[in-house]
C-alpha cells in the first residue's frame, strides 16, 4: 500500500509542480500589469497586499466562473449555483472532440494543427442541414452531425492525402488550411443561402428545433446532450487505438513509420485515413457546438477551440482519458476566465498564457526538475521528437 501511495505521489509531483509554477507566473503577470497595483510600488507591504488581493480575487472569480458561485443561488434553487460548472462542461464538450482529433493524430505521428478549420467546416455543415431542412426529431440531429463530420473529414483528409502523396509537412498545410477555412466562413455567411432574414450581420438562420441537442438540466443551465457524444467519442478513440487492427496500424506508424512500412503497413493509407478521422472528430465538435449551444452559425463560431485542442491534447499526453480531463480543465479556465474578466477587469486572454505555461512545463519535465532541484527518474517517452526529415 505504501508503495502504491509513494508511486502515486511520484507520478503527481511533477505535474503538480508544473501547474503550481504556471499559476504562480500567471498571477505575477496579472499583478505586475495592473496600474493600481503598480502605483503602490513605493511601499512594499501595500504593494504585496494589493497584488495579493488582485490575484486572489482573480482566481476566486476563476473558480466562481467555472465551478460554483454561491451568489447565483439567491432567489433560485441551490442547483443554480452550479451554472458555472454547466458552463465549463458546455465549453469542454466541443473541446473534448477537437482535443481527441489532435490526440489521435499524435498517436499516428501527425501534428493536426488544423482542428480549427475542420471545426469550422463541421459547424458549417451542421448549421446548413440544421436550418435548411425539416426532419423528424432525432434524425435531424444525426443528419446535421453527419453532414458536418463529412465536410470536415474531407477537409482533414485532403491534408492527409497531400502529405501521403507529396511528403509535405502537415504543420504548414494545416495552418494554411485554417486560414483558408477562416476566410471561407466569412464569405459564406454573406451569401444568400446563409443570411438570416432580417439581419445584415454575418449570422446564419437558427437551426430547427428538431436539430437541437436537448438540454440536460432544465432551461436555466446550458449543459446539453453533447457531452454524451463527446464522451462516447473518447471511448470510440480509445477502442479504435487499443482494440482494433486499424488502431494498431495507426500506432505503429506513429511510433516508427519505417518499421511499419517494412512490416507491410501502408503508411500513405494510414496518414490519409487518420487525417480524415481526425477531421471528422473536430467537425463533430463544430456540429455539437452549433447544435448544442450556439444554434446558429456566426463568423466567430470556432473561437479558440482549434487552438485549445492542441494544448488539450498535449496536456492529456495524447491519451483519450487524459484528453477528456485536460479539456475539462481548460474548459474551466475559459469559462472562469470570462467571469474573471467581467468582475476584476483582467482580460481573459491571460488564460491562454496559463494554458501555454502549463503545457510548456508538462512537456519539459527536465526544466521543472531543474527549477525545483529534483532528482532524475526514468524519463517518460516524449510525444514526438522528429524533424522535417521524418
Amino acid at each position, binding site marked *: 500500500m505504501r508503495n502504491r501511495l509513494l508511486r502515486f505521489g511520484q507520478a503527481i509531483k511533477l505535474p503538480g509542480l508544473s501547474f503550481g509554477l504556471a499559476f504562480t507566473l500567471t498571477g505575477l503577470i496579472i499583478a505586475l500589469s495592473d496600474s493600481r497595483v503598480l502605483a503602490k510600488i513605493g511601499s512594499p507591504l501595500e504593494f504585496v497586499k494589493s497584488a495579493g488581493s488582485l490575484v486572489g480575487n482573480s482566481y476566486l472569480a476563476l473558480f466562481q466562473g467555472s465551478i460554483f458561485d454561491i451568489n447565483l443561488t439567491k432567489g433560485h434553487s441551490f442547483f443554480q449555483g452550479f451554472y458555472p460548472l454547466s458552463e465549463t462542461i458546455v465549453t469542454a464538450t466541443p473541446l473534448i472532440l477537437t482535443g481527441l482529433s489532435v490526440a489521435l493524430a499524435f498517436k499516428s505521428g501527425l501534428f493536426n494543427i488544423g482542428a480549427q478549420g475542420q471545426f469550422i467546416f463541421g459547424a458549417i455543415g451542421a448549421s446548413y442541414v440544421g436550418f435548411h431542412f425539416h426532419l423528424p426529431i432525432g434524425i435531424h440531429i444525426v443528419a446535421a452531425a453527419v453532414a458536418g463530420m463529412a465536410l470536415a473529414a474531407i477537409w482533414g483528409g485532403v491534408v492527409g492525402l497531400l502529405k501521403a502523396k507529396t511528403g509535405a509537412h502537415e504543420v*504548414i498545410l494545416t495552418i*494554411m488550411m485554417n486560414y483558408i477555412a477562416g476566410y471561407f466562413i466569412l464569405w459564406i455567411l454573406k451569401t444568400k443561402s446563409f443570411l438570416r432574414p432580417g439581419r445584415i450581420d454575418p449570422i446564419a438562420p437558427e437551426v430547427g428545433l428538431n436539430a437541437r441537442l436537448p438540454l440536460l438540466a432544465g432551461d436555466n443551465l446550458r449543459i446539453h446532450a453533447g457531452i454524451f457524444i463527446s464522451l462516447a467519442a473518447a471511448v470510440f478513440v480509445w477502442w479504435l487505438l487499443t482494440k482494433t487492427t486499424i488502431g494498431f496500424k495507426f500506432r505503429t506508424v506513429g511510433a516508427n513509420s519505417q518499421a511499419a512500412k517494412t512490416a507491410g503497413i501502408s503508411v500513405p493509407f494510414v496518414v490519409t485515413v487518420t487525417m480524415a478521422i481526425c477531421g471528422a472528430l473536430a467537425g463533430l465538435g463544430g456540429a455539437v457546438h452549433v447544435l448544442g449551444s450556439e444554434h446558429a452559425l456566426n463568423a466567430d463560431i470556432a473561437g479558440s477551440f482549434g487552438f485549445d485542442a492542441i494544448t488539450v491534447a498535449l496536456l492529456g499526453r495524447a491519451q483519450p482519458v487524459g484528453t477528456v480531463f485536460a479539456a475539462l480543465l481548460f474548459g474551466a479556465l475559459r469559462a472562469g476566465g470570462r467571469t474573471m474578466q467581467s468582475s476584476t477587469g483582467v*482580460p481573459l486572454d491571460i488564460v*491562454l498564457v496559463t494554458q501555454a505555461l502549463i503545457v510548456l512545463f508538462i512537456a519539459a519535465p527536465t526544466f521543472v526538475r531543474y527549477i525545483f532541484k529534483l532528482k532524475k527518474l526514468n524519463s517518460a517517452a516524449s510525444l514526438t521528437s522528429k524533424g522535417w526529415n*521524418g
Partner: protein
Amino acid sequence: MSEIRSNIQTRRLRGVSVISLLSLVSLVFFGFTNAGKGTTTFGFVLNNEWVIIKEWVISAATGAKIFSVLALVASLVAAGAYRKKVKIIIPISVATFGIFMAFITWVAAGKFIPFTGLLQGALLLAVPLVFGSMSGLICERSGVINIAIEGQLLASAFVSGVVASLTHKTIWGLIVAPIAGAAISFLLATFAIKFSMDQVILGFVLNVLVIGLTDFLYKKLLVPYQDTWNTAPTFGHLEVPILSKIPLIGPIFFSQSIVVFIMYAIVAAITFALFKTKWGLRTRAIGEHPTAADTVGIDVNKLRFKNVMIAGLIAGVGGAYYTVGSVGAFGKEMTAGAGFIALAALIFGKWSPIGAVFAALLFGFADNLQSTLTIIGVSIPSEFMLMVPYIATIIAVTGLVGRVRAPAADGVPYLRGGAH
C-alpha cells in the same frame, strides 16, 4: 516520415504538369471568358522616377492570351528539360509569372493597375517573410526547428510599436525590436537545447504564449490608454539618389523604408557568412552531423544556442516592420500567420538564403496582389483574394518543390555519447 519521399523525377514531373495545367487553364479561362471585356491599363510611373513608358493599355482578353501563351511555352520548355538534371526553375518561374500576369490582366478589365506600386508593395510585404525565413534558416541550418517565428515577429511588432509610441521616436522602436525577438529565441534555445524539449511543440507553445501575452496587454493597456501606448510614428521612405529614379527597378528596390535596406544588408551578410566563413562551415556542420562536429572539438550546443539567439535578433527586426515600418499602431495578432509563411518560404527555397528570399518575394507578391485588386474593386469576393497567399503556400510546399532535404540533424537534440 521519410518513406513518403518521392523520387526526384516524379517531383519534377509533378511540378511541370501542375504548371502546364495551370497555364492551359489560364489560357482557356482568362483568355477566352467574357468577363475579360474591356481594357486593362498598367501604370508604370509611381513618383518621380525617369519615365520610359507611362502606361500600357491592352485589351484584357488579348493580354490574358499573350501571357498564358508565354506561360504555356515556358511550361513546354520545362517539360522538355525535366528528364535531365538541368535546372528547370527558370522556365517554371517564367511560367508562374505568365500565369499571374494573365490573371491580373483578366481580372482587372476596365481598371487601372499601378504596376510599379504593386511590385514596390510586394517587396515591402515580403519584408517580414524574408526576415522570418532568414531567422528560420539560421536555426534550421544549425539543427534547431523554429516554429516560433510567428511569435518572434508578433512579440517584436508589439514591443517596437509600444516603445516607439512611448518615446515618440521610431528609432527606439527599431532598436528594441531585435531584443524582443531574441527574448523568444532565448526561451526556444533554452528549452530545446538545454532541456531537449520537442521543438515543434515548443515552437507552437511559444507562439500561444506570445499571442496570449500580447492580446492580454493589448486589452489591458493599448486599448484604454491608446494615446500613450499605441500611437507609434512610422518610418518614411528613404530614396537612394539616382538609383531610385530608374524606371520600375528604382521605386521598387531603392525607394523604401529603412527596414528594407537593413534587409538587403542582412541577406547579403548571411549568404556570404554561411558559405564562406568559419562560422558558416561550423554552423552547417552542426546541422548535418553534430557528432562529427563534436569529435573535432566544436561545442555543438553552445553554437546552436548562439545561432538561435542571432536568428532571434534577425526575426525581431522583421517584426518592427509591422508597426514602425508601416502602420504604426499594433493590432491584435497582426502578423496573421506570416511566421508560418516564412517557414514555408524557407522550405520552398530549400533551406538556401537566395531561395528563401525568392520564395518570400513570391508570397509577398501574392499578398499585395490581393490587396491591390481589392482596392481597385474587382469582381472576386475579397475573402477569396485573402486566401491567395495561403493557397500559394500550399501549392508551393506540395507541388513545386524539388528535392526537399532539410539539414540532416534538423530537430534532433544533440546528446553526447549517443544517448537514446
